[in-house]
């Protein structure tokens, strides 16, 4: 790390062909709170644990799920401040597209541009990769989409996925529960059940966050009251 030959870039290849900083970035993601997403036939849901270190924090001020355009939202696992930088860049990207084309940016294009930013930070001097994986959910003219973007800049489209602390168990659970003809309401219930699986403590409307987008193409974050209603349905 202090070796002058390699100190111009943190992302120089190791002899085995790995980029060690990216591996470590993925570790940072894996240590973050669980997030998951499920794509239904008529919409997408993303959800995350909102585990705050102490009761004294005003949880209404913490927003993990953010809007990128009116029909796309994003949730992250990993280092919060890193995700805010990406949200800012993505929003700007989406608006630039709109300025030129007067069309809302398709979800896949927004994902592509965000991933390109993340990749830049694995190949530039003096910077480190982002310590977040993002789950981007949106509904555009091609239908509902759910994408995962990793610190390396690679992105994948998913039917259902989880990232963060409990991801392996969550994905196993999702594999069992996911069906191709699931509708948005079923997907929300399944998302809650999946979060519940790995949840430490009592799950409630103020310690999880859920964002949905349906065929109305308006992404929104559910209020704690709405989340509590869904939790009651799931009981």
């Amino acid at each position, binding site marked *: 790390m202090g070796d002058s030959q390699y100190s111009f870039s943190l992302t120089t290849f190791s002899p085995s062909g790995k980029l060690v900083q990216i591996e470590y970035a993925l570790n940072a993601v894996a240590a973050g709170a669980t997030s998951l997403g499920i794509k239904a036939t008529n919409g997408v849901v993303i959800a995350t644990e909102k585990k705050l270190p102490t009761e004294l924090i005003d949880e209404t001020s913490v927003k993990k799920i953010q809007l990128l355009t009116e029909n796309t939202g994003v949730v992250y696992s990993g280092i919060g401040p890193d995700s805010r930088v990406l949200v800012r860049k993505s929003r700007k990207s989406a608006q630039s597209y709109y*300025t*030129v*084309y*007067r*069309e809302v940016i*398709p979800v*896949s*294009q927004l994902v*592509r541009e965000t991933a390109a930013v993340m990749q830049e930070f694995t190949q530039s001097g003096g910077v480190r990769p982002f310590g977040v994986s993002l789950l981007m959910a949106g509904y555009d003219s091609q239908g509902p989409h759910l994408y995962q973007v990793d610190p390396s800049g690679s992105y994948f489209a998913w039917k259902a996925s989880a990232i963060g602390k409990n991801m392996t168990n969550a994905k196993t659970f999702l594999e069992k529960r996911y069906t191709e003809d699931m509708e948005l309401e079923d997907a929300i219930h399944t998302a809650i059940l999946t979060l519940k699986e790995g949840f430490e403590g009592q799950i409630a409307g103020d310690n999880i966050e859920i964002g949905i987008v349906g065929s109305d193409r308006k992404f929104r974050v559910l209020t704690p009251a709405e989340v509590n209603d869904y939790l009651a349905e799931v009981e």
Partner: protein
Amino acid sequence: MSITSYNGGAVVAMKGDKCVAIACDRRFGVQLQTLATDFNRVFQMHDRLFIGIAGLGTDVQTLKHRLQFRHKLFSLREDRVMPPSTFARLVSSILYERRFGPYFIEPVIAGLEEDGTPFICATDLIGAYEECPEFGVAGTADESLFGACESYWQPGLQPEELFETISQALLAAVDRDALSGWGATVHVITLDKIITRTLKGRMD
């Protein structure tokens, strides 16, 4: 003499019933001297989108290349062709980028939207954008074209009727303009095909 009338030229587009037509003259000159009679000013972007560009010849050609470049990249990235309304916005953006040193051109965009609705739009040289409900005109014969289109156009024209209408309108208008003429190229775009015809008018 105005820079936009240095080379001459005329472009017109008209809406029909689930079809559009776009036509231009074929003259290229330097002020009053005609240098070419096969100069094309209407360019295809994809199966359902054309743009006709009137004005300074060099800018007509440069814009054509820049717009084709942008459209090709777009369709590679997004795996779809650009709808005409989106393309019109793109043209407007590209022209405004040069707000204080503009391209001396006036484009007319004509095409069919994804659902088959006809779309025509004309902009000025710095990108002020107006969707045309019936027809769009540009070039040195634009005022004559307005008159001709207003007289000949009617709603609900079928592709063959539209071809006749736009051809008559263009030929009549360029006959009154010294800097346009020497024949015409007419494209009629429908959902399943494009028919292109070259006309011989008064060759002067």
